[in-house]
C-alpha cells in the first residue's frame, strides 16, 4: 500500500512541476524615440493568465550576452489579467534575447528571442 502511494506521488511529481512552468508572449513596438520600445508581455500558466507577479525585463545580444545587455526594468501590470508592460531602451535594433525574471507566486526565468525592428 505504502509502495503504491509512493509510486503515485512519484508519478504525479512531474505534473506538479509542469504546473509551475510559466509561458510568455512578447510584443514590442517602437516608442517614437530611437531604440526605445514599448513592450507588452502576456504571461500564462496552463493557458490561464498569471497576475500578481513581479516581472523584471532585461535583454542581451546573443553574440555578446555579458557586454551588450540592457539595464533590466521592472514591468508594470497591464490592463488585462496576465498582462505586463515595460519600456526597453536598446543599443540597436535586431535580434535580442529578452530575459523575464518572475518572482512572487511563481519564480522562474524565461528567455524569449525577439527581433526589434527600427
Amino acid at each position, binding site marked *: 500500500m505504502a509502495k503504491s502511494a509512493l509510486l503515485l506521488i512519484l508519478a504525479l*511529481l*512531474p*505534473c506538479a*512541476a*509542469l504546473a509551475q*512552468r510559466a509561458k510568455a508572449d512578447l510584443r514590442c513596438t517602437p516608442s517614437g524615440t*530611437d*531604440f526605445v520600445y514599448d513592450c507588452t508581455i502576456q504571461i500564462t500558466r496552463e493557458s490561464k493568465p498569471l497576475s500578481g507577479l513581479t516581472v*523584471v525585463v*532585461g535583454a*542581451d545580444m*546573443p*553574440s*555578446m*550576452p*555579458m*557586454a551588450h*545587455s540592457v*539595464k*533590466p526594468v521592472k514591468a508594470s501590470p497591464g490592463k488585462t489579467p496576465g498582462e505586463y508592460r515595460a519600456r526597453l531602451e536598446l*543599443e*540597436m535594433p535586431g535580434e535580442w*534575447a529578452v*530575459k523575464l*525574471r518572475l518572482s512572487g507566486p511563481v*519564480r*522562474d*526565468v524565461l*528567455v524569449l528571442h525577439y527581433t526589434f525592428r527600427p
Partner: protein
Amino acid sequence: MDEYALGVLTNIGLFSFVALSAYLLLIAGELSFGQQAFFGVGAYAAGSATAMFGLSLPVGVVIAMALGAAAAALVALPTLRLRGLYFAMATLAAAEMFRILFELIHWQLDVEGELVGPDGTQGFRGIRWMLESGVEPIRFAGIVWLLLVLVLLAFVYIENSKLGATIRALGQDPTLAGALGIDVQRVKLGVVAASGALAALGGALFAHHNTYIEPRNFDIMLGVHSLAYALIGGLGTALGPLLGVLLDIGVLEASRFLQGYRMIVFGGLVALLLIWRPRGILDEKVLHWLRARFS
C-alpha cells in the same frame, strides 16, 4: 546592491575566467582566438549535467573543466607545431567548428514533463539550478568571485614557482627553452589543457547565471574580447586580465549614452592603448617597478 549592479559584478567575474585562459596562453607565447570554444564546452557540459541529469553544480563544474581541458588538448595536438599567426588562425577555425557543432546538437530529455537540453540553434533553455537550489543572485556572485580569487591565488603561486618560470621561458624563446632541456611540446600541451579547463569553468558558471545558452554566445566576439582583456590589462601579472575586464565593462557601462556607437569608441580606445603599451597596463616593466618600490 541592486540587481543590475550585481549582474555586472557577476559578469566581470565570469569574463575574467576566459580572459585568464587567454592570458595563460599569451605568457606561454601563443595567441588564441579560440578560447570561446572551451567556454562553450563548459557551458554545455555543466548545463547538461545539472539540467538534464540532475547533478549538482560542483559535479557539473568538474565535468565541464575535464571536458574543456580534453577539448583544448584535442585542438592543441595537431596545431601546437604551428607558431604565431598560424596558431591563432588554427584556434579560430577550431572555435568555429565547435560553434557549428553546438548548432548541430539536438539532444533533449524529458525532465519533469519538459524537454530540456541542447536544441541546436534554438539554444539550451531551462538551466535552472540556481532557482531550484534557492541560490540567490548575490550568493551566486559570491561563488563566482570566490572561485576567481582561488584561481588568481593559484596563478600567483605558479608564477612564482619553477613551472611559472618555465612557462615564461617558453613564451620568450621556445628554441632556447628547448635547448635548456624543457620539453616544449609537453609543457605547451599542459598549458593549453589548463587554459581550456579555466575557460570551461567560466562557461559552466555562465550557463547557470544566464539559465539559457545558445551557439551564438560562443562566437568570435567573445574570443576577441578575452584576448583584448589580457592585452589591455597587461601580461606582467594575472591581475592584468582582471584589470582589462574591469576597464572594458567599466568603459562600456559608463558610455551607455553613446548607444550602439560605444563599441566603436571602445575599439578606438583599445587600439590607442595598445600602441602606447603593447604588453598592456600591468606589463613586466611596471611589475618590476612596483616590486622595487614596495619590497
